[in-house]
């Protein structure tokens, strides 16, 4: 997460991508990355892990997954 946030900082600074002022809250981390982006980098990995664990549980009940 730290690595990807760093990439985001760099990309915003170099204008690889930009955000519409009117559609963000306006609070930026160190004047660069909108806090919405910070939230994105918290929520997406979290949801990725939850999806992965849920699928593991779900598929463990079927014959797709064998016991180790």
């Amino acid at each position, binding site marked *: 997460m730290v690595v990807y946030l760093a*990439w985001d900082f760099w990309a915003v600074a170099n204008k690889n991508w930009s955000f*519409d002022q009117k559609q963000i809250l306006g609070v930026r981390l160190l004047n660069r990355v909108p806090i919405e982006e910070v939230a994105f980098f918290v929520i997406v*990995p979290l949801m990725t*892990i939850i999806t992965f664990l849920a699928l593991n549980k779900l598929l463990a009940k079927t014959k797709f*997954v064998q*016991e180790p």
Partner: protein
Amino acid sequence: MIYSDIALDAVLLAVLTDLFLLRTQLLTRGIFWITYGLILPFQLLTNWWLTSKNIVTYSATEIIGKRLAGAPIEDLLFGFSMILATLSLWVFISKKINPGKQQSDRPL
């Protein structure tokens, strides 16, 4: 086309991490690909929403120019690398903390 370069490097780094650095070998397991397949449509949906309302704008000089659902195709590489890196780290840490007990240790 800096974004293209970094996105490719990110995928390479995530793959190396999964296969060799942490040896979580998620790329060889079906469960990873099912997880990715489930997340991908939602990434595309979000990309489309963020770009169609011009909430996020990409600099035309930093991408190769091909777009999918509004966002540069580089975004797919970025998304894939982040999902792989996240899960690789997660599986690695959960194995360290709780060897042999985690659901995520199972084959498939």
